[in-house]
């Protein structure tokens, strides 16, 4: 059982690095949708007993993270007539290096944080990696839409952590969904306020008028 869970976790890390490496926007969205699907599968796998709550949780997560949000993103790209390619600030190679560094840090920190309640000890480091790479994507990508993707990845990382405690704390993981409200707000902001056209390019780096 645990080997399958570790396989899924491995795939999640793979999807993280995929988002880092992709140059085309639609590819990134497909990667994040895949990650959402993987997360949907995990609750069924990670705990030994198969409870109804885990099933509902898995299906719900898969629905939101794999289907609804990616569709919402694609609709936003069409609505805001966004140019297709991703403009990274520091280049793909550098992003990958940062990702690797995040991986090392995550495993170092995870070593300090032993977890007993869940069989696989891979879950904590993977969660940490996902959170950090999400933040890195948020920092290094200049396009607002890509930043939203980065934020989604951070959320997935936190959701992973939530899984470890899903048995004990009844609706802990469901709170994670509330983070998606932010994502919604961002996307609506991009579409409604035409963040793209407003700053005559989607890249958030143009927002530099306010400083000392």
């Amino acid at each position, binding site marked *: 059982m645990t080997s399958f869970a570790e396989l899924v976790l491995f795939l999640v890390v793979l999807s993280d690095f995929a988002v880092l490496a992709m140059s085309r926007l639609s590819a990134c969205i497909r990667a994040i949708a895949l990650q959402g699907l993987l997360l949907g599968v995990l609750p069924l796998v990670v705990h030994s007993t198969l409870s109804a709550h885990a099933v509902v949780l898995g299906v719900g997560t898969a629905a939101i993270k794999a289907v609804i949000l990616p569709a919402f993103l694609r609709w936003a790209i069409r609505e805001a007539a966004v140019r297709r390619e991703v403009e990274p600030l520091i280049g793909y190679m550098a992003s990958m290096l940062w990702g690797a560094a995040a991986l090392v840090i995550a495993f170092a*920190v995870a070593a300090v944080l032993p977890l007993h309640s869940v069989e696989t000890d891979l879950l904590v480091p993977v969660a940490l990696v996902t959170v950090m790479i999400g933040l890195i994507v948020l920092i290094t990508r*200049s396009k607002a839409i890509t930043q939203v993707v980065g934020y989604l990845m951070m959320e997935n990382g936190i959701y992973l952590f939530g899984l470890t405690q899903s048995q004990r704390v009844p609706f802990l993981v469901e709170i994670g969904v509330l983070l998606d409200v932010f994502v919604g707000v961002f996307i609506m902001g991009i579409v409604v306020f035409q963040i793209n056209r407003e700053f005559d390019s989607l890249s*958030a*780096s143009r927002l*530099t008028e306010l400083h000392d």
Partner: protein
Amino acid sequence: MTLFLIGLALVLAGGVSAVATRRGDGRRGDVLYQALVAGGCVAAAVDPARVLAGRPAVTLAVRATTPGGDWVLGIDALSAVFLVAVLGVSALCAVFGTHDLRREAADHHDGVRRPTWFAQLSFAVLVVAIALVVAARSVVVFLGAWEVMAIGSYVLIVTHHEVADVRRAGLIYLVATHTATLALFVMFSTWQVGASDWTFAALGAASPSLSAGARLAILLLALFAFGFKAGLVPLHFWLPPAHAAAPSHVSALMSGVVIKTGIYGLLRVLLMLGGAPAWWGWLVLGIGATSGVLGVLWALAQHDTKRLLAYHSVENIGIILMGIGVGVLGVAHGAPAIALLGFAGGLLHTVNHALFKSLLFLGAGAVYRATGTRNMEELGGLARRMPWTWAGFIIGAAAIIGVPPFNGFVSEWLVYQGLFAAGQSSELLRLALLGIPALALIGALALACFTKVAGVVFLGTARSARAAGAEEAGRGAIAAMLLLAGTCVVLGSLPPLGLALVTGAARALAGTSVVVPEAVVSSAWTISLLALVTAGLVSVLWAVRTAALRRRIVRYEPTWGCGYDAVTPRMQYTASSFASSILGMFGRLSGARVEKTALALHTHSVDLVLDGVALPMWSAMHRVALRMRALQHGGGRLHFYLLSILGALLALLAYLVVGPRP
């Protein structure tokens, strides 16, 4: 104690009445204001006077609602000395101030119709704050009154806030006092560690158990904070601009009384600590001597009457500190007799300085009101046009120099005796003898400075149309000045009165075992005899002179110009030429800068500490801050904001991994 509080309430009522009667014509409102403030001061002065007359100290504890124990007020011998000076000078300054503001409002030659009620209200609040500072016996009340005093003085300093220099002077003043307050924060905190709560009694009880480090910190912080307030060199830089910018009755109050709260603070800390080590005494004595000499030297270099008087405050604070230094050394070396002389000299000079310095400032204020300028080079020949102001000013000048029949001599005489007594002892204390020539140098320089001011401003012929057209100050103003002058003469010719005033407090500081030696008391009476003898001789000689002239012809001619008869007022010795020979000797230290061009010679004075150290340091801090900001901010880009969060996260994670695991 209740009468004291009633008195303060009356003063506040005076301030409020000024607000109430601001609509009507000024006369009624002013009379009411003066009556209430002066009456309040007199009523409040009754309790301190009783304590000075030997009654035991009184305290009043109010159940406080703020943390840190009760609010306690108290009047003991030390507070009484300061309270009497504070309330006396405040009453007279209020009277002078009202007349001065009334005349300023009448002719408002600077074209700005300024409501007088605001100045009167803040003056009343200031007086109450000073009285509370001196009577406070718990930290919260002390610091509260201290800052209200600072804010009250600031608000009064910037009365003429349309002038840029006034605003700048106000800001420098405010920064100085606030830094002093923050230093007091740390001082009281280090002191309060062992104490049960924040009252002075608890602090006093906790002081024996203070660690050496804490005691060192308290002494240094007290000297820094109270020194900043008192204006000793090098922390004096805020004093001249502030006193020059303030209206004259406010600068009289500030110079006479507000900077004395610094001295009071030092003595209160000494009393609570129960004595200080010898090195601190040497430090205070050294700073006192430097402040004295440099203060009067820089005063010589000034052309502005009020800046000159402000620098003189620095000099007199120096003399007071020399007295306190001798006192501390006496206690440290176990010689209470020496300590008594030192503390008595310091305290009496504090009271004397409060009297003659406020008199001189009121005189300078009257001159400013009459001529509209403070620049000495434009004045001259005012003695003839303003005889009463001249009489007050000359008595103040003689008193500040310390010549016998006036009160300045008595306190300097005590300090001299303290220094000499210290010089006679066997151990290291003998070096204090070197204080005597320093004090003599200060006295001589003061003589030079005040002959310059009196001569250039009041004597000779008017150097400008403004000086020629000056009229005498108002009746109320003259009354205030002459009352102060009278007190100076009385205290000068009756030294035992002054001695009795400060003996209680001096014995409290020097150790209550010692009593004023009989020789000193009898000498005090002999000094009044000497004053009498001198006055008698002068009147006898005056009679001889008038008798000799009865049958002789007395002619009045223009001054002998060695044959040259087209003498113009411009040919008279001016302030800068009079002082140039002395300043030349001290070179750049004197702060006088001379610019010679082909056509003209211009001298101006520079404050070595303010222009040399404080402002350059401040602009350097500005540059560092600007450079750090540009480096750190990343030009407002969102990515940089998020990067800083990532940075913080990584730092904390590292801390989590390697940090302590309790």
